[in-house]
């Protein structure tokens, strides 16, 4: 894909989606996650009486095992996403104390640090332990005040240098819905949570419930834990299932790309946040290492003047121009090119509405964005957008806007497709807002009028149509949803990196899901065959070799004969007429070896060869 200066997602592996900080505040680069695991009570009790966990069908069936497994996956995920994220693991309610604050019952299993191959191996071992071994190793059921847990987390986060570089998060796993009884304890816990929030630490809560007992969030945790006001809240809080997916992919945080003013009409303005919901994931760019010691190398790019060999300053010593008609230069500075794009300040300006249907299938030039009201910019935006969405949905309209993403970006036209909220089982599957589709300019659409006009107005015999319909119906793909398959190339890459990191013999098998269903194809063979015959009834099938590629059309050119050594051989070749088939370089080489001038066209060369022999 080509690079678009108006887009901020640019090429390269790193995530350049820097949210536009308010007043130049620096955006965090990476994530810090403390995985806090409750081991106070019932921790080793099976979630279901028969020892099977209701969500997890695998061999992991106990609370702790399951959590350790999840934690392992989490660490693993961070390792895979090749970032500077840091992960720490904290157990509470265990017998041993091992933490910076020296609190009882809290054990910092792993310091907050970047995950490594060693850690993953260690966690895999932990996950294999039986409950009994777990009990022996860590000990459970020690009452530990929740306030101490939060305090320890605070300390852990505080110990790390330069907090502004990180987004901090706590993942809290617990099966205990009423850990503390005394009012003092609750009060203390709230103070600590407050402290965490002062540091902008987010707390993700993962409650686990036992079969025979409901987990009541109201009893204790509900008043303690804050939620993100702009996020959807389902009744089941954190979804463990999401964490369990051991997909080799980068986890993306929800981050605002831009906050813009939405000019509805003169005098009426709202504020919106723009999110990226779709971006092509690629194999990250490699870091070059020195092969002797595997130390990373530093790259340096210099601009050198060909004439003088001098090192050039990228701004002061280099002028830019546009070349026209092959030779003429028109001097244009980068500044001027940038100014040519400037038509107004950043913002989203409403131009009008059009029927949604007028957006044709080929009006795609870029990936979509998601637009959501930003109440922190203009209060009441949510009300306005909500009303607009419902008006547009009723009339089946989309809004057309001009969109200037940031100061130096080109203005473009976009279509805002209204999107109603959709829920399934108390879970949001589609957030409410507008999907923003960038419209192509006239310059960007190719007109395809020239092709295949000769076969227009084919009249299809009904038999053929019916046969084709049978095929379309026979090969139905039910419940297809975008993003239902994993990228086989990326999966293989990550598996390979992991195998090398953990010195495994073979990379883990990756499944290429992007393959046709062979058994179904076999079953439907007759109807496809019928269609094929119906087509052949209308026109003869052109036979082609290979895979139908362009090469098949051109008959292989007969190979040029070998270059003759001496004059005798050449004479023979000339006599037979095969000399004509010699290539120009061959002729030139021959002439050169015989000390004759070897420039000119092929005919001249041949003439010279003839006169030579």
């Amino acid at each position, binding site marked *: 894909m080509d690079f678009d200066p108006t887009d901020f997602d640019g090429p390269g592996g790193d995530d350049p989606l820097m949210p536009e900080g308010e007043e130049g505040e620096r955006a965090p680069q990476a994530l810090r996650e403390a995985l806090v695991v409750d081991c106070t009570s019932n921790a080793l009790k099976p979630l279901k009486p028969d020892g099977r966990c209701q969500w997890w069908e695998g061999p992991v069936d106990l609370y702790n095992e399951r959590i350790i497994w999840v934690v392992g996956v989490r660490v693993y995920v961070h390792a895979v996403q090749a970032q500077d994220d840091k992960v720490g693991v904290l157990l509470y309610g265990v017998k041993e104390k091992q933490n910076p604050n020296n609190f009882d019952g809290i054990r910092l299993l792993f310091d907050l640090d970047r995950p490594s191959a060693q850690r993953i191996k260690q966690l895999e071992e932990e996950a294999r332990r039986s409950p009994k071994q777990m009990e022996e190793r860590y000990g459970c059921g020690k009452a530990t005040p929740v306030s101490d847990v939060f305090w320890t987390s605070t300390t852990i986060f505080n110990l790390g240098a330069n907090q502004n570089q990180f987004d901090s998060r706590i993942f809290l796993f617990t099966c205990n819905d009423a850990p503390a009884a005394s009012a003092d304890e609750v009060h203390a816990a709230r103070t600590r949570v407050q402290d965490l929030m002062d*540091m902008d630490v987010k707390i993700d809560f993962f409650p686990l419930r036992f079969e025979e007992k409901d987990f009541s969030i109201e009893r204790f945790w509900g*008043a303690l834990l804050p939620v993100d006001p702009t996020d959807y809240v*389902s009744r089941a809080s954190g979804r463990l299932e999401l964490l369990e997916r051991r*997909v080799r992919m980068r986890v993306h945080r929800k981050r605002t790309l831009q906050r813009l003013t939405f000019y509805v009409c003169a005098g009426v303005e709202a504020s919106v946040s723009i999110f990226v*919901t779709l971006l092509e994931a690629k194999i990250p760019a490699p870091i070059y290492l020195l092969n002797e010691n595997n130390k990373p190398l530093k790259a*340096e790019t210099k601009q050198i003047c060909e004439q003088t060999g001098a090192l050039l300053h990228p701004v002061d*010593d280099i002028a830019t121009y546009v070349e026209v008609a092959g030779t003429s230069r028109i001097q244009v500075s980068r500044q001027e090119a940038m100014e040519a794009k400037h038509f107004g300040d950043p913002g989203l300006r409403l131009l009008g509405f059009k029927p949604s249907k007028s957006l044709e299938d080929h009006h795609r030039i870029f990936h979509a964005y998601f637009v959501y009201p930003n109440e922190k910019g203009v209060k009441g935006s949510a009300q306005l957008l909500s009303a607009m969405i419902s*008006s547009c949905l009723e009339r089946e309209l989309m809004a057309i806007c001009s969109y200037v993403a940031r100061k130096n970006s080109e203005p473009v036209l976009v279509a805002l497709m209204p999107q109603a909220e959709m829920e399934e089982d108390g879970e949001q599957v589609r957030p409410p807002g507008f999907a923003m589709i960038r419209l192509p300019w006239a310059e960007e659409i190719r007109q395809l009028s020239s092709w295949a*006009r000769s076969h227009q107005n084919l009249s299809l015999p009904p038999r053929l149509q019916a046969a084709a319909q049978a095929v379309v119906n026979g090969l139905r793909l039910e419940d297809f949803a975008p993003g239902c398959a994993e990228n086989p190339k990326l999966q293989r890459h990550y598996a390979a990196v992991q195998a090398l990191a953990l010195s495994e013999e073979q990379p883990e098998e990756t499944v290429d899901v992007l393959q046709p269903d062979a058994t179904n194809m076999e079953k439907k063979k007759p109807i496809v065959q019928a269609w094929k015959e119906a087509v052949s009834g209308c026109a003869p099938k052109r036979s082609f070799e290979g895979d139908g590629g362009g090469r098949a059309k051109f008959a292989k050119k007969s190979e040029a004969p070998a270059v003759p050594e001496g004059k005798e051989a050449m004479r023979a070749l000339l006599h037979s007429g095969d000399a004509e088939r010699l290539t120009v370089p061959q002729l030139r080489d021959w002439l050169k070896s015989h000390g004759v001038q070897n420039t000119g066209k092929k005919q001249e060369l041949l003439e010279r060869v003839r006169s030579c022999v």
Partner: protein
Amino acid sequence: MAWKSKEAMVVVIDVGASMQETFSVVKDGSKVTRAQTALGVAQRLVQHRLFFTPKEEVGIVFFGTRDTQNDLQEDGEYRNIYVCRNRKIDVVDLEALRCLSETTAPKGGEVSDAVSALIVGLDMLIKRTKELKYKKSIKLITHEFSAPLGDPDLAECAKQLQVMGAELSVTLVGSSGKGAWAALQGEHLKVVSLPELLRDTELRVKPVEQRAKVRLALTISPEMDIPIGVYSKTTRVGFPTMKKQSKLAAAIPSEARKSDKVLPDRTYYATDDKEGEEVKKEDRVKGFKYGQNIVPMSEYDEAALSYSCDRTLTTLGFADAASVSPESSLHSVDVVAADKGDAWAHYAFESLVEAMLSEKRVLIARYCFRKDSQPRMVALIPKKGDASSSSHLVLQYMPFTEDLREWTCASLPEPTAEQKAFTNSLVDALTFDPQTLRPEETSNPSLARFYDFLGRRAVDPGAKLESSVAAPVLEMPEHARLALEKVLPENERLKVKASFGLEKVEKAVGRERKRFWRDAIEEKTRNAASIGEVDIKKIKVDAYTGAKKTEEKEEDKGPLRHVKGEESQEHRGDDSMAVPVGVPPRVHIGSVNPQQDFERWLNERKTGGQDVVTPAIEQMCNVILRFAEEGEEFHGKALGCLATLRRGCVREAEVAGYNEFLRKLRLRLTRRQGMLWERAAQDKGLGLITDAEVVTSTVTAEEAQAFLEGRELSGPTASSSASATAPDTASTTVWKYL
């Protein structure tokens, strides 16, 4: 592929007497003559060829000029006709553009004769193209009166055009009729209007020959392959490439200069050895991050472990057409059509398109355009052929799981009837017909502006970019604006704003309002109609059952609310989630970074607003006491806070706040407070704030010293009259002690 024939164009421009009349008036009142307009049009034509089809050949003829310069002038005829560029048709270059600029164009104003000029133009075309295969055209820009009615020469010209296979397009500037040209219209002679003439120069893009970028087979099943071609449908078009040239080389006289190229040079060095040698390519190995490890992957590993596949376009199945939406397109799209000239493929393809359309299905396929390239999941959307194109499938690139970033957003509030009425009228007023702003007819204003600037810069190196250009496509269309004006006049808009509560949040003041899980659950349950059925998978929410009414719920939650404290009361019943504006910020100093918090709150006062200093000081004192109580290991931090508190109090002249607190601390109310005081007393910098520092202080330096040492000098507070004494004397006391 047939060879594209060369093209030759002669632009014939009338600058004669009849063209000197005013054609239009620009905003600032200056008049534009017809000749100027004609010149401008000719410029656009030549510019477009210069930028996008530079192989095309161009000849430029002026007539009605004062000077005469043409090949046919010898026998005294063909006067007032001036042929630029050495009287030749040649490949377009900057020179061609220059002779069309107003300053260098030949002076006009004489009698103009379009017929003679046309003959000169034809003569040039004949001389240039001879028998060669050329696409020939003449663009004549003139006025109705330049060609006399019924001129026999004109009829002769028309015949000649036919013989040559040249096309003549006549554009009459500022004329209502078609004059002598009307009678001659035909295949080779057309009268076109100004906008029509400029139409093909509107798109600032190189015209491309439509060619399949990939030709392969669409595999339906192992038995069935349809030969197809893949074409680009949308491609990004940006500004032309900016090339680099070295200014150092430019300074060298051109005779000695071989090139002024800038060569990029990328070298690798060992990170720890900056002075070291450059690392050669063969000594480098690729590495990939795995957590904190960087895993080297040699070329051998890469070849052995990386993914490999064949080129293919294989059907996975036919999915519901509704499951593929514009939101799920990764980037630009391509188009698939049956292989050219293959009747079998056409029948198969056509029947497939028909069947998919009637069944409302799209084809989902695996697409890999080249061996070992990234395989893609694509959706093929059927499109029935019409007059302008044949049937095809639009190839949309679908995302993989890794490409999706799914997250959730809070539900939006239900709009009120009044709000809905506004958006309804807004939407109705601003709805245009589908033909307005069709992407196919809307060209990029940035490109237009840049190329326009480039054209002017080409002629005049000093030309400047137009500072502000209106782009109509980026603004609300005039008719829509007027329609809106009618349903919603300017003065009504305040009402609208009020109805939505639209109010700009200047800057988030104070701390963010928190929402707890319980609030969220409460909202959810209130909205959800089906509370009765409880999904056992979900976490149970206490206190709610379907039968209970909202009021009862509120009551139920009474005791719980107490647990939560004032916070929840503050925003209960407040549906919006934003920070309420106008509510005074709640000062809060946490125990994590109390010093920073404190400083921040003090600064808050400086920016204006309510008094936050007093609560800030109070809370800071509490934080210090808390640290004191929590254990000796926190005393260090407490002292730090104390220092900050003192600094802040000195700056804000809040003497009492600090001094009172320190006195209280000295009372050693608890054992730990006493320990803290002992440590504080050792630090001379933490003593009472003296009158030397803040004039309102009643404490002299002497007293402060004594206070720290634990001696009682006099009463803890000096008389208030002491504070009223001149600061001069106070400072002298300090000097004595220093």
